[in-house]
């Protein structure tokens, strides 16, 4: 039997059947005002309760304890209310969702706190001469505005630059081996790269000290620091570059090979140019890691108070090392000139890291939108 949908009687019947008596349709994922009200109500009521008990009745004080008690009370109140309204199953689900959300969002607190604290402390002694002068003849007790970190900035630039020149070609070659050549040793190489990324920075410094200074009898220099930094950058560059190469579509490789070009030409002229922006991201992430490393520099570039333009001879300063030495001079006394200088250096360092990070993200985004 076929139904004629144009028949008014049939149409009336189907509409009647489709419309249930009066219940509105339920959208399980939709936001309901009811839930929002429960959430807000629980947070406000727990805030009031905790304030009453914590601040007025119990002999407790302190912001940290207050927040912890508030969060715990809130979770308890929220769970009880949801249990009354929706039953235990839904209550547990909501409780876990809210708890996980609170933990994840609270990760923002240290990040924001670090940025605000370093910027706040760093601005005290920040002057233009900080970027123009070195520390020649500046004693630890002199005003924090005397002297500067120009020698450290120059050293950081040169050391990271040399480290880039070493680790980028090697890292990208290793990535090409892991993703393009795919020889018999791909799995071991990948394992070595992973193992190398876990090498503590201090061990890299000790190693360069043992091989470059003790074995080959060179002196402290910026180049030795660059060698240690390149050990730390290499795995970061290799791993990120491999991930980027994996995003290059196989069709491009096959098209190039089918046109008769050899493997090296396919990699050189097709794969690497396609992945260019991603490779830049890999390099910048490696830089961001290297520029803040302090420990290996103690035993490789050693640090100095004067400007040293030549990275191949004599001790050289760099930004993290400058901060570390000024911190040690200050001896943990807040407000001392050395303390202020350390924080000005830390401010410059974190600005550099932030800029590198943002550039890396921008390149990463353009790669995504191109896909």
């Amino acid at each position, binding site marked *: 039997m076929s139904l004629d949908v144009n028949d008014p009687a049939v149409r009336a019947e189907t509409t009647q059947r489709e419309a249930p008596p009066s219940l509105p349709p339920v959208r399980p994922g939709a936001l309901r005002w009811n839930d929002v009200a429960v959430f807000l109500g629980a947070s406000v009521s727990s805030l009031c309760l905790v304030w009453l008990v914590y601040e007025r009745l119990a002999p407790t004080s302190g912001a940290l304890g207050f927040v912890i008690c508030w969060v715990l009370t809130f979770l308890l109140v929220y769970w009880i209310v949801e249990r009354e309204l929706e039953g235990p199953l839904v209550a547990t689900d909501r409780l876990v969702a809210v708890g996980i959300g609170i933990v994840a969002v609270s*990760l923002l607190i240290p990040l924001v706190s670090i940025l605000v604290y*370093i910027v706040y402390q760093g601005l005290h002694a920040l002057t233009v001469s900080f970027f123009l002068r070195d520390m020649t003849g500046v004693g630890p007790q002199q005003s924090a505005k005397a002297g500067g970190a120009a020698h450290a900035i120059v050293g950081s630039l040169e050391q990271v630059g040399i480290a880039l020149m070493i680790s980028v070609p090697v890292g990208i*070659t*290793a990535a090409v081996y892991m993703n393009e050549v795919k020889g018999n040793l791909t799995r071991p190489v990948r394992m070595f790269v992973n193992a190398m990324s876990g090498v503590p920075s201090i061990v890299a410094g000790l190693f360069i000290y043992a091989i470059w200074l003790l074995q080959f009898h060179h002196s402290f220099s910026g180049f030795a620091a660059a060698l240690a930094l390149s050990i730390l950058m290499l795995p970061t560059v290799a791993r990120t570059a491999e991930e980027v190469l994996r995003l290059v579509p196989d069709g491009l490789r096959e098209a190039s090979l089918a046109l008769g070009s050899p493997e090296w030409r396919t990699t050189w002229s097709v794969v690497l140019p396609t992945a260019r922006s991603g490779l830049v991201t890999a390099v910048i992430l490696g830089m961001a890691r290297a520029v803040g490393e302090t420990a290996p520099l103690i035993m490789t570039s050693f640090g100095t108070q004067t400007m040293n333009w030549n990275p191949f001879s004599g001790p050289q300063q760099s930004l993290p090392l400058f901060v570390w030495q000024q911190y040690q001079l200050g001896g943990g006394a807040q407000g001392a000139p050395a303390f202020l200088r350390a924080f000005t250096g*830390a401010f410059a360092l974190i600005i550099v890291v932030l800029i590198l990070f943002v550039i890396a993200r921008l390149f990463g985004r353009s790669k995504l939108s191109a896909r």
Partner: protein
Amino acid sequence: MDDASGVATSTQDDRGPRSISRNRTRADRAYRGIALAGGMVTFVVLFLIGLFLLVRSASAIRVAGWRFFTTAGWPPFLTEHSQFGIAAIVYYTVEIAVIALVIAVPVSIATALFIAEYAPRSLRRPLTSLVDLLAAVPSLIYGLWGFFFLQPKLIGVSLWLNTHLGFIPIFQVTEKLFRSSPFIAGVVVSLMVVPISTSVMREVFSQTPQGEKEAALALGGTRWGMIRAVVLPFGVGGMIGGAMLGLGRALGETIAVAIIISPILVISPHILQSGGNSVAAWIALRFSESSGGLGLSALMAAGLTLFLLTLGVNVIASFIVSRSRSGSGIEI
């Protein structure tokens, strides 16, 4: 078919099909050789690190022998007859790492679940970037912030733990000095561990098969029920591997610990009390005083121990992540 092509076919039939060479050209062999060399650099560097640290630490190991691992002291000037060893230093290194993991692993699991399952799709990339930014902050900055900003706040927490949970042995103190304790160092290190473990766990969680998740929801499970029944069992390997990678990072943390801790060489179980140590921080702090001779050699031996420890932890971690069912195709 026209005449010309017919002729062409017949001549080709005479010569047989063109043989395709499977041999690579010389340029291609060079290319593969260079790429292999680039890959093997990592192996060579790892090997050389082990070799040179071993060579340089030989004289200290000859003096101390196996007692190097069981002695707690480390006098300022080492001679042929002094008793020195890294027992206390390794003990505190592991203690700080364990404290860091106890805090970081639950936080990492929650953050990874939030990014992979709870957060709206549009928030996922910004949240991932934020976690990565936490990883990009230099260790030195963490140390300064932890020492000057976080420490005064954590002393209150230490006091509270000591007063109310003091019956637990590790929360006891012999004197009420709460600055520069392993607990404070552990909290700061945990912030550096969270981004690493979170990124591994997030990647593993996001690889959970969509079909199984939808099946759990279609059977009437709540979101938490679905996560407990599908996502967490699927991600066990990633969670263990991520935690172990974090352990590797925590063991090798240098400058932040060196800033916060006040080094001692006596093993004490009181985590809230001032004084602790770590292999990496010890090397950084003692290096300038031990120029040459036995002292330097002993530091090299400590560095070798740290290198082997972190290498072992990292290799096991990457093995677990890559071998677990969940981690197939994920590189850490």
